[in-house]
């Protein structure tokens, strides 16, 4: 299982909500729109860097808490008419645990947002 990193139990992310995850230098928003689905996006809105993990989650999207830009959870695409894309990370759920794809994290040389202080 070295291709995947174990993160936490699925239930540690509230259904209809999100949690912030520090993974090395990368800050990730784990977003769980309902009990079935969970996604991992970089915790940084392409507009002004707002933390998506603090956004309002509704259906297939999350609204950035700073200026309301909406991001599609499945693809990381910013919903029109706004533009941009948020990096997304491979994620799977196995036996009630969340796992992230190691390769996606390795290719993540992003500086941490100002407010995040490292793990």
């Amino acid at each position, binding site marked *: 299982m070295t291709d995947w990193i174990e993160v936490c139990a699925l239930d540690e992310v509230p259904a*209809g909500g999100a949690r912030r995850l520090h993974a090395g230098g990368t800050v990730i928003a784990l977003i769980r729109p309902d009990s079935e689905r969970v996604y991992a996006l970089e915790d940084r809105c392409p507009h002004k860097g707002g933390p998506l993990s603090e956004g*309002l989650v509704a*259906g297939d999207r999350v609204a950035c808490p700073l200026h*309301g830009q909406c991001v599609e959870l499945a693809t990381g695409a910013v919903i029109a008419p706004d533009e941009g894309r948020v990096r997304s990370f491979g994620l799977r759920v196995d036996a009630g645990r969340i796992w992230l794809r190691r390769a996606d994290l390795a290719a993540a040389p992003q500086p941490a947002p100002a*407010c995040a202080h490292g793990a």
Partner: protein
Amino acid sequence: MKSQTRPRLVVVGNGMAGMRTVEELLKIAPQRYEITVFGAEPHPNYNRILLSPVLAGETRFEQIVLNERAWYDEHGIGLHTGRAVTAIRRGARIVEAAGGIEAPYDRLLLATGSVPALPTVPGVGLPGVLTYRDIADTQAMIDAAAPQRKAVVIGGGLLGLEAANGLRERGMDVSVVHLMPWLMERQLDQAAAALLQKSLEARGLRFLLQTQTLELVANAGGRVGAVRVKSAADPDAEPTRIEAELVVIAIGIRPHTALAERAGLHCQRGIVVTDTLQTVTDPRIYAVGECVNHRGTAYGLVAPLFEQARVCATHLAESGIGRFQGAVVTTRLKVTGVDVYSIGAFQGGSEADEITLADPTRGVYKKLVLDGDRLAGACLVGDTEHASWYGKLVKDKTPVGALRETLIFGENSIGDSGHAGANRAATLDDAAEVCGCNGVCKGAIVRTIRERKLLTLDDVRKHTKASGSCGSCTGLVEQILIATAGGNYAPTPQARPLCACTERTHAEVRQAIREHKLLTAADVRARLAWRTPAGCASCRPAINYYLISTWPGEARDEPLSRFVNERAHANIQKDGTFSVVPRIWGGVTSAAELRRIADVVDKYRIPEVKVTGGQRIDLLGVRKEDLPGVWRDLDMPSGHAYGKALRTVKTCVGSEWCRFGTQDSTRMGIELERALWKMWAPHKVKLAVSGCPRNCAESGIKDVGVIGVDSGWELHVAGNGGIKTEVAQFLVKVRTHEEVIEYASAFLQLYREEGHYLERTVHYVARVGLDHVKQRVVDDAAGRRALAQRLAYALSLEADPWHEPGKAAVDARQFIPLVVEA
């Protein structure tokens, strides 16, 4: 990738209404249909409204195309231009078009538009006689127009005047022949029309009113050479002859129903449709636009047609719960430099109450028609600056009794901030900032409207962000849109839906929650047939508020439906950190509290400490992980500075210390704050108490402002110090502290029960009227006490989220980030 199994939608008519329907349909159900469009004209869809600026030489054809051919390809739409549909075989569900083309359909949309009405006089068919309807007509007029030559326009309505102006701009000598006693008689009253006529005469147009056309006379070459006319007012008048090398007939339009009639669809001055835009004859066939008769009206203006398009699209997408219920019609004349606007029942009548302002020297005429305390219609010439505002008042049925004195002068622009008092779009240069919130200048708005071919305020807002935040520049943005695109094509629906997930209004959602005792957001969405199972970022907080304010103690607060600030109980800042504002009752603190605050600042290395405008202390730059510790160590109640909730009660020093004070405003303020804190509301709520009419606590711009006078307290409500400074209105004068609390509680509970989510008290009171508030809070003593008791009950169940997180349903996990080694 095309699927064989998709149903086929055939659209007859490639004009604005038909294509708008297709665009709306693609937005909500992009893959549902295999779409084929037939257009009789050889062009892609263009903006017919802008033909007049083309005729006047102000813009070019290429600039008014709405959907290029590439757009049809991109969306996989089969386009047949220059192919008029000749027959509909309803049994076989096939349309036949010119050139032998056949197209089978599962759903058919008729958008055949209208045809020019023609007078029954000899000579209508002569060469040189044109109508004014499409690109071909416009091009023919441009080709025929030559300086010094004579033109006659028959018809002094909107279209006739625009044609006449366009020909005049091209140097022609133009006379307008009009049968009625004044111009644009369906849109203007006589006084307004007289002013309009004067300003058009000043541009060189000539008018023959109350004049009947008898005959169009050919010249020696067989082309039209003159028009014979006769006064309609005087039966004994002799016919006269006007020379004309070009005649434009613009006496009106009639729905183009020939095809529908041949197909056996019920037509009566238009194809008769239901509120869902379905023909009454054949449920597979829909119709929109000028060809339609809806409840006896055939609309010829674009805003209601776009509304039809929107509703029709939802039904074609089979998600339809919308209905078209008719529209208030607005008219604008598109003659550059001549401002004319009318809306609603502007004609008035013997029963109606009218306010008029006439300044003939300036060329300004305004008439407002009132029905009780509502604005029923308006007619403006020469000064249409406030047209959008009047339009909104008519459509929203806003009570205007309190505004009556100043209504005629337009929306009061005093205190409008963020765009430097600029309020006339035409005079602004491109670099002028229009939207102060988002830093959008006029040039950027104009460019975006042109490039993206935007037609509605909503679209402009989406693409430019202008007027999308505080909204104070909405009127200005709308004017820029009108100047650039020829109109704001979207009508403000009379009752605006709560959000894009539903057709229901705020009031309807609220009513359903109360009547059916709905206790969860999921129940609300299910009962009201929400389009999205989980709602959106707009409706989730609204529904949550309606539930907990309607059923306190029974409906459960859902923190995940709240904006981050109300979930984290602190204010998110631009860098993702938070600010913390502890409650300082009435602004009175102590050495011990200040010492604790100082210690917290040191311990958590909080970068900035600021005194707020509400007499409190703001700790800025707190990391989310530190919030629980900061709250615990402060050991002060939550200030709710982050919520749609009671914020502060600002006080002046009052009679305890002040040599002018007549009342103990500090104690009054603290009592009010203790009675009302933890109160959630549709929007934030701020109070102030001043000890004398000098009003040092600024009670005049608060949601509830209390002012001490020698004999007691005055209560003022619905003030606002925000985007638009609004002075609070006097509600009542009372004697005791207990009465202040009872009246203030009752007013705020009424607002909690009736206000729309995100509506400040100033807008709530403007919507329902101060008289309504007085009746419920001042006149009805038993009702007042009941309101105050309902608020007290709701507040008795609330907990301080900083110190009772369990009871306040604060999810503690949010303060602990997850960590993995990567």
